[in-house]
């Protein structure tokens, strides 16, 4: 929609034509809620603005070596990805509202869905969502709609950022959220099985979880199904190059953050929400699916389908208030996955796991540093205990150009000295040594 400005004189003419004053138009808003004065500074010239913004951005610490993960990871992005995704026919297309004339975009979505299904071991994927957290919320609502229940069990080894999102989204809804406390870094099986009952609509778990620990949830999926509940599993797509898929563990809905698939770290997004499920549940899924079909002459073509519950069609019947997706991000992820291929994804996953394992050994050899949970299996991220406050250590290492990790005290009580460290395929042996040496020097 174009912005068409109008002058004071034109506004006056319009008001006269309808016989009202400007105050009449806003009569429904109580006086005390009307803004009297915004106290805005005078406008800046372009040059002044540039100087100010540059000064602000100059405060950021840049060119750090990242050992910081917690849901967003510093993976290598081949130059071909931004080059291809930046082609104007993809870059400028927002969302295919007239799908039949957007065959290229639809095919790209179709490929994305197909790859996500293969990666997660699920039958159906939607065309993407805002980010991992919104995907998790939507998955939870899907499960509750399907089971017609209102109790959710979520382990606190699920990314705390997602849990905060779920809490705030559901604050005014009639949903009972039961949080179980992890046990030695893994999902707390005993507590989950104990809480699971005929009122439970969904169990939400993550693999690898927020602490990087890997697990097999097949038993929990079976227990949940026995009680008529669904298992929602949050995954780290890259890890699926080597880990057992959520599908083979019996998950009903799989969600995840797709940033690791060729998208840059950008302080909040745009990121990529992944949501995949079973054929049985596809009608409850938000968003739409791009499907392959043939036209009247038998030519292959793509269509948007299963979109009867989309917001732009019938708002009151919509399954979600998110009606658009992250098509460009999904495209980037598709290019990443297709360039790497099955073997490449496996190689990346192995590199992450091996390098993290090396870093774990190297760091726990530093005097005073301990593994928090003994010999737990982890993927590319793990927790160490420092002899002192982890937040202080992280601040000191930033000055040396190292983002050492995520201090867990921010989200977990009693974990003041615990530091979550992520290692991707980008980290070199040298960088890992630099971290270990720097840590040793300040402890």
């Amino acid at each position: 929609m174009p912005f068409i400005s109008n002058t004071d004189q034109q506004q006056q003419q319009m008001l006269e034509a309808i016989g009202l004053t400007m105050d009449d138009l806003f009569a429904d808003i109580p006086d005390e809620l009307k803004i009297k004065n915004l106290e805005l500074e005078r406008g800046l010239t372009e040059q002044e603005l540039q100087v100010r913004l540059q000064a602000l951005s100059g405060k950021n610490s840049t060119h750090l070596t990242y050992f910081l993960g917690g849901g967003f990871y510093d993976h290598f992005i081949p130059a071909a990805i931004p080059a291809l995704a930046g082609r104007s026919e993809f870059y400028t297309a927002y969302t295919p509202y007239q799908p039949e004339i957007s065959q290229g975009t639809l095919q790209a979505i179709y490929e994305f869905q197909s790859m996500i299904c293969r990666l997660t071991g699920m039958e159906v994927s939607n065309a993407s969502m805002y980010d991992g957290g919104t995907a998790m919320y939507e998955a939870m609502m899907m499960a509750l709609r399907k089971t017609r229940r209102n109790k959710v069990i979520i382990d606190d080894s699920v990314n705390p950022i997602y849990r905060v999102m779920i809490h705030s989204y559901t604050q005014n809804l009639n949903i009972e959220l039961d949080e179980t406390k992890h046990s030695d870094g893994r999902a707390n099986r005993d507590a989950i099985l104990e809480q699971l009952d005929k009122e439970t609509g969904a169990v939400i778990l993550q693999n690898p979880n927020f602490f990087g620990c890997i697990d097999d949830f097949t038993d929990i999926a079976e227990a949940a199904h026995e009680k008529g509940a669904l298992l929602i599993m949050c995954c780290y797509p890259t890890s699926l190059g080597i880990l057992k898929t959520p599908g083979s563990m019996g998950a009903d809905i799989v969600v995840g953050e797709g940033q690791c698939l060729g998208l840059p770290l950008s302080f909040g997004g745009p990121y990529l929400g992944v949501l995949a499920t079973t054929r049985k549940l596809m009608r409850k899924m938000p968003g739409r699916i791009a499907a392959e079909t043939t036209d009247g002459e038998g030519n292959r073509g793509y269509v948007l389908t299963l979109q009867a519950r989309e917001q732009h069609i019938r708002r009151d019947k919509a399954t979600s208030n998110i009606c658009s997706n992250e098509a460009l991000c999904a495209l980037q992820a598709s290019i990443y996955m297709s360039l790497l291929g099955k073997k490449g994804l496996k190689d990346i996953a192995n590199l992450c796991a091996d390098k993290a394992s090396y870093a774990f050994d190297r760091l726990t050899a530093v005097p005073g540093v301990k593994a928090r949970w003994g010999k737990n299996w982890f993927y590319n991220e793990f927790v160490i205990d420092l002899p002192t406050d982890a937040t202080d250590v992280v601040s000191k290492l930033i000055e040396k150009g190292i983002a050492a990790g995520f201090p867990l005290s921010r989200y977990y009580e009693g974990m003041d000295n615990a530091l979550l460290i992520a290692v991707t395929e980008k980290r070199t042996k040298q960088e890992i040594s630099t971290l270990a040496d720097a840590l040793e020097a300040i402890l």
Partner: protein
Amino acid sequence: MVVDGLYYTKEHEWVKVEGSTATVGIADHAQEALGEITYVELPEVDREVSAKDELAVVESTKAASDVYSPISGKVTEVNEALEDEPEKVNEDCYGEGWIAKIEMSDASEVEQLMTSDQYKDFFKDEV
């Protein structure tokens, strides 16, 4: 197509009354207008409904439409076959495409529905 012996609503639902049980579905005109039906969201068994309450939702390729209960009562049975074969509503809306059975709480409500002849007239006017 209008089947004799059934009752109809202005929203194009049909009702078949047998004793105190009312079987409900959507009329031929409705399934025709909706096009290819891809999904039917059935009500819960044992749910109490009042006349004109939303009973079910019928989805076609591009829309989701409400089906209103023509009658008050308790849902005693739903046509679960529609979960796998929603196209039955298109193929046989008065037979295998039925949606729900309701144990009527007030049989006099039937009198407020249209008979097949009245529906034919109403239908003619609407078209």
